[in-house]
């Protein structure tokens, strides 16, 4: 992770040894005066619950979230599931950008932000306001980790997502690179281009590139875990053991949850996709 000062370094920086410019003064003043507070700093006011899982590819977080959803639903809780990079709004642009290798770290980051903002409007906020339990497979922290590993400014990407509320529980599934690689390659023949961070140009060899890129991501996740108070789960553990921990933490989050569990028929309608 770059050792940028996250707190405030938004001053206008010069290009090369550039001299003065008639417009500079006003621009600099505006840039420096911007508001740095984020909704991630305090609990959200909604009656629902927001649970996010984070971790590098192959950490097993999606599996664990699915198991949690099954448990919650069996107990009659209204569950809504939403997944990173799944909105239709930017699907074509993302596909085109990836296929033709048009994406830069900045446009990659902004397209994911559009995806998130779209899902936030239509999939996250309404169920949260409606008192449901929203399960997010990856949240804004994925952008904070991956996009910064690709080279965007850590302060900038936090500003981009400053409309995102703080989850009630963020679980970080921590796994060593080798284990994640082993899991990914067991399921398919090769790594995906962006998953391996091939666009970053760390290595022309996919496995080596994955190692280098995901190590950066992992390192940033470790820092985010402290910054945002993630609960860390050792994702090398046996699946049932991890799930038991997850459910225990979920139980704490459900303390004071104001809704009586619904009947099976009712909540079936609110399962989302």
């Amino acid at each position, binding site marked *: 992770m770059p050792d940028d000062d996250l707190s405030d370094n938004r001053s206008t920086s010069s290009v*090369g040894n550039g001299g003065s410019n008639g417009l500079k003064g006003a*621009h600099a003043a505006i840039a420096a005066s911007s508001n740095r507070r984020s909704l991630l700093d305090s609990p959200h006011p909604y009656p629902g619950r927001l649970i996010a899982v984070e971790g590098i590819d192959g950490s097993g977080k999606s599996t664990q979230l699915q198991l949690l959803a099954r448990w919650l639903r069996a107990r009659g809780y209204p569950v809504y599931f939403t997944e990173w990079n799944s909105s239709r*709004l930017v699907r074509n642009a993302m596909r085109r*950008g990836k296929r033709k290798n048009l994406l830069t770290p*900045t446009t990659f980051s*902004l*397209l994911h932000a559009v995806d998130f903002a779209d899902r936030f409007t239509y999939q996250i906020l309404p169920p949260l306001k409606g008192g449901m339990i929203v399960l997010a497979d990856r949240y804004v922290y994925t952008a904070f980790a991956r996009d910064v590993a690709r080279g965007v400014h850590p302060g900038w990407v936090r500003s981009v997502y400053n409309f995102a509320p703080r989850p009630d529980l963020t679980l970080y599934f921590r796994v060593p690179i080798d284990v994640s690689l082993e899991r990914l390659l067991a399921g398919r023949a090769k790594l995906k281009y962006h998953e391996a961070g091939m666009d970053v140009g760390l290595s022309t060899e996919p496995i080596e590139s994955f190692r280098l890129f995901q190590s950066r991501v992992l390192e940033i996740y470790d820092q985010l875990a402290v910054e945002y108070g993630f609960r860390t789960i050792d994702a090398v553990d046996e699946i049932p053991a991890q799930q038991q921990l997850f459910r225990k933490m979920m139980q704490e989050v459900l303390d004071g949850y104001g809704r009586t569990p619904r009947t099976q028929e009712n909540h079936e309608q609110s399962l989302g996709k």
Partner: protein
Amino acid sequence: MNNHSGNNGKRWYGHGLPYLEEKPLPGHLIVIEGTDGVGRSTQIELLRPWLELEGFAVSNTGWTRSPLLSATINEAKAGHQLTVTTFSLLYAADFADRLEHEILPALQAGFIVIADRYMYTAFARNTVMGADPAWSRELFQMALIPDRVFYLDIDVETLVPRVVQGKGMDYWESGMHLALGSDIFESFQRYQRRIIEEYKRLANEFGFITIDARGSIDEIQADLRRHILSYLGTARHPKGSATIDDLSE
């Protein structure tokens, strides 16, 4: 007037693009701002051949015209599913794509880049749509500050007949998404009035050069050329590009 390092004093609006290798930007970035139908593209069409005749290489770039996103933005507008947040982010993505793939390479190559709208369009529109102005500005921290911003200033009364005789009143340019009223004419007037008000604020804040756009096409063009000549005259020129002496012939 010699600056062989060739940056023309360019600065990033914020942190710029930290992952890019810094390269000299000997070109010039000139922005034409102004509301819908004020005549920006007509003026740019006239500026280009004039500058080329004077020996400058010119590159154009236009709002929401990025290869990556223009189709997405058009589809999304047609589907009416955009919120102010997704709208703002799509604008920023379109801008970033053009900045990295069109604007910066052209400036590196010593071109004059004429941008039909720039981040200020997003600032004006996002604010009118209700976005937090500070957030809009944060989104564009990767931008390069233009060398000159020319703002084509017009009042709604003069604008209306131009738009009606031109391509007509469009859903978005009339701010129909803001539900200011069911009458497109009234909605257009109210929306454009707010946009123009916002532009005037920005002009003041960011030091735009305001051009009176109520005049004829030729009058506006003459004004623009006079300002551009004066800018190019005072700008530091990299080796090999034209100087003011060439221009004033």
